[in-house]
């Protein structure tokens, strides 16, 4: 099978040059749009994709986006899950900054939180590869390892019938990504950069998932904060296609995401 596709790499460029499908296909019906699948594993982009797009707009110093270390001993599982997501986003930032020590520190914190969630076994095995990739400055492999770590935590949560926590890991990571990207766009405003913040499908999907959480989880104080901020964030993220958000809107969005991330990482009394 591998042999069958070996010539593919060379052929693809040629095929792509010769054949460009100019959208002759019929449009989707409203029913097809309404019935489209949405999955955590494919529909929600990774922080790395968001950051890759931001890198195209201009050179940026990712090390300025680090935040101080957060607690790793939260008393509630929902809050722990939200912070696992945030830390994984921090991992992507550290990789973009090519800071090996920061990657290793974040890796340790992810494991500490994963232990609280009871999914440490698989993740601990990933940790040693994260550390060695970091030491050898293998940044591309590190991105893959980090993504695999996130998926392993989520798979373990799903297998343990903790699907609710999967939603919270995704929300935590997404909020931290929005905080960083909106902060950068606010400080270096361009219409092009501001348009990157448009993610209407994601925010409505995540908000629906948050509202579908069991009442006990929804009432956790960190989840309450996330739900409140996410519903406020929706109007700044779901702007019309032809419009660029103003610098004021971007600043407002950054403040909402930043407050959410800070509150979520604060230990509950």
């Amino acid at each position, binding site marked *: *099978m*591998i042999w*069958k*596709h070996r010539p*593919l*790499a060379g052929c*693809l460029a040629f*095929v*792509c040059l010769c*054949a*460009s*499908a*100019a*959208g*002759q*296909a*019929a*449009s*989707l*019906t*409203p029913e*097809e*749009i309404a*019935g*489209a*699948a*949405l*999955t955590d*594993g*494919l*529909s*929600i*982009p*990774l922080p*790395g*994709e*968001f950051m*890759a*797009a931001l890198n*195209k*707009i201009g050179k940026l110093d990712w090390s300025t986006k680090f935040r101080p270390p957060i607690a790793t001993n939260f008393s509630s599982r929902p809050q722990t899950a939200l912070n696992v997501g945030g830390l994984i986003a921090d991992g992507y930032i550290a990789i973009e900054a090519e800071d090996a020590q920061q990657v290793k520190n974040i890796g340790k914190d992810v494991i500490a939180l994963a232990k609280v969630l009871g999914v440490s076994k698989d993740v601990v095995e990933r940790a040693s590869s994260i550390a060695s990739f970091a030491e050898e400055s293998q940044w*591309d492999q590190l*991105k*893959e390892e980090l*993504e*695999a770590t996130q*998926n392993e935590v989520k798979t373990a949560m*799903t297998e343990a019938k903790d*699907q609710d926590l999967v939603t919270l890991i995704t929300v935590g990571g997404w909020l931290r990504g929005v905080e960083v990207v909106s902060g950068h766009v606010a400080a270096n405003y361009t219409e*092009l950069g501001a*348009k*990157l*913040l*448009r*993610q*209407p*499908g*994601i925010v409505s999907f995540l908000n629906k998932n948050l509202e579908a959480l069991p009442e006990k989880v929804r009432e956790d104080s960190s989840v309450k904060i996330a739900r409140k901020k996410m519903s406020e964030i929706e109007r700044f993220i779901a702007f019309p*296609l032809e419009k660029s958000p103003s610098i004021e809107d971007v600043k407002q969005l950054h403040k909402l995401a930043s407050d959410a991330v800070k509150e979520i990482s604060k230990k509950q009394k």
Partner: protein
Amino acid sequence: MKRLLLSLACAALATAAVCAAPTDNEVAARRTALEVAGAFGNDGFKLRDGNWTGLLEVGKPKVIQVNLYAGNQYWFTLGSVPAAKKVAVTIYDEAGKAVEIDPYEEGSVAAAGFSPATSGSFYIKVEEVEGAPAAFCLVYSYK
């Protein structure tokens, strides 16, 4: 009582759907998709560690919503099993209009390359054009 039994049956079905392990055909479809998507890695594309699997039948396409970022380049790769003689991938904007793609189609494998000019929601349609019902797996790469 009837309602209770019905609810329990629905719950059991839902649980089975969520927890169901991938079938051998889905695993084979995924392997095919990954082999093809691996070729894009030579061009610096990073393969996302996630996939969407299911069963395709002629005349019954499936659609998934994704969020893409302007400035990034994407390849969506569909793998199936030999029972599917011809498959296709089409990308639509958030209004449901087909967008221009770089297509690749070879039997039970198809891929679509796309660079969005705007960030936001897009729809990916996967379909079987010819063949018997077959498992499919969709993956994507970006740079």
